[in-house]
């Protein structure tokens, strides 16, 4: 099947590599041909799985929304409304301004991230092996050259995109609520302030440095927390998958534990998004 010898480290490496696509001088290229394509590389497995799961989320919730009425809800309706109410309660408790964006944003993040994390519970070899089989049979590729990373949140691009989206909203809300002057004042006049004008001028760069770090740390922490948790979890699943028969109880224990991580990380990402946006829209620093 595989032309080159499969070692443990190459097996793991294979699992941790995205399916890539890039355009070269000779047209579209894939995987190893994209080794030096730099920024303009598309991780097609991440894109396909995340967008597919996003569409699953929208389809499920849209079908519930279409059926929504004030009568007695069915079980499916109840389940969906339970999630909506859970997210809505969290938003109401944390975000005190008026915004029609925060709640749908939080819902999207929660369910989408949860679904993407959930892919981690599918045994690690199933889909990559299936993709390799299809690649070999249908396209005549070496199955070892077919890459398939099915958990989009183990790709830093995915989590960074979410974090950047939230970051843009944070800045947008801060400017919208406090005005551009208020936003800049927040960045420059805290935490050190002085009544002396000369002293203040001296303090502004210090404040700017501190506040900018504090501001930028938020999306970094968002992106890296989710990525780190899921990447580590995935890595341990891959390692467990490589230890032979012993993997059965080990996989069960780790998967059971990972269910917690999956829900918790989705919830944490949602909560922090709400908290950051709430901080960005509240006037008192």
């Amino acid at each position, binding site marked *: 099947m595989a032309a080159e010898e499969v070692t443990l480290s190459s097996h793991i490496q294979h699992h941790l590599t995205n399916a890539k696509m890039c355009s070269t001088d000779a047209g579209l290229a894939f995987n190893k041909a994209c080794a030096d394509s730099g920024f303009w590389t598309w991780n097609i497995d991440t894109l396909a799985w995340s967008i597919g799961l996003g569409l699953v989320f*929208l389809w499920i919730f849209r079908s519930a*929304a*279409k059926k*929504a009425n004030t009568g007695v809800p069915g079980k499916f309706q109840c389940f969906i409304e339970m999630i909506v109410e859970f997210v809505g309660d969290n938003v109401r408790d944390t975000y005190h301004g008026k915004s*029609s964006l925060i709640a749908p944003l939080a819902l999207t993040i929660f369910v989408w991230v949860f679904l993407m994390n959930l892919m981690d519970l599918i045994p690690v070899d199933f889909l990559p092996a299936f993709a390799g089989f299809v690649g070999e049979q249908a396209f005549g590729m070496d199955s070892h050259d077919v890459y398939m990373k099915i958990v989009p949140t183990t790709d830093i691009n995915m989590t960074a995109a979410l974090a950047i989206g939230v970051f843009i909203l944070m800045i947008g809300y801060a400017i919208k609520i406090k005005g551009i002057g208020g936003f800049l004042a927040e960045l420059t006049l805290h935490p050190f302030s002085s009544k002396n004008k000369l002293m203040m001028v001296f303090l502004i760069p210090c404040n700017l440095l501190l506040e900018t770090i504090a501001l930028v740390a938020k999306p970094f922490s968002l992106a890296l927390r989710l990525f780190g948790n899921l990447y580590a979890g995935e890595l341990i699943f891959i390692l467990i998958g490589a230890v032979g028969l012993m993997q059965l109880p080990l996989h069960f224990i780790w998967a059971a534990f990972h269910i917690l991580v999956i829900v918790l990380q989705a919830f944490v990402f949602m909560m922090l998004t709400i908290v950051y946006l709430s901080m960005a829209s509240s006037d008192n620093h």
Partner: protein
Amino acid sequence: MNLTATLIGELIAFTVFVLFCMKYVWPPLNGAIEARQKKIEDGLAASDRAEKDLELAQKKAAEQLKEAKAQAADIIEQAKKRATLIVDEETVRGQQEREKIIAQGHSEIEAERNRVTEELRKKVATLAVVGAEKILEREINQAAHSDIVEKLVAEL
């Protein structure tokens, strides 16, 4: 593990998903939930009100029942009184009637006796006349005179 253009793709997808959710998913679901909550709240309030109404109606019914009972007792009492009154009246009237009838009987008997006495008197007179005639006849028969008178006397 480098940041690549995937980031841009995901950012666009994220934006589109959030916008779709904001337009077509959140408002109907949240609206339905809130409307249902309102409906349940109203229903509970209505049931509370109905309960209170029922309590009030029951109290009122009990009151009316009590009143009706009292009225009925009153009416029965009155009827009893009236009945006694009527019985008394009738008794008195019967008594009077009886006395009247008895008195009438007495007077009738009296009248009859009077009439019989009168008749007897008349008969006595006639007898006297007849006796006198007989005595006159006896003028011829001296001997017979005295025993006729005696006879008359005995007849009286």
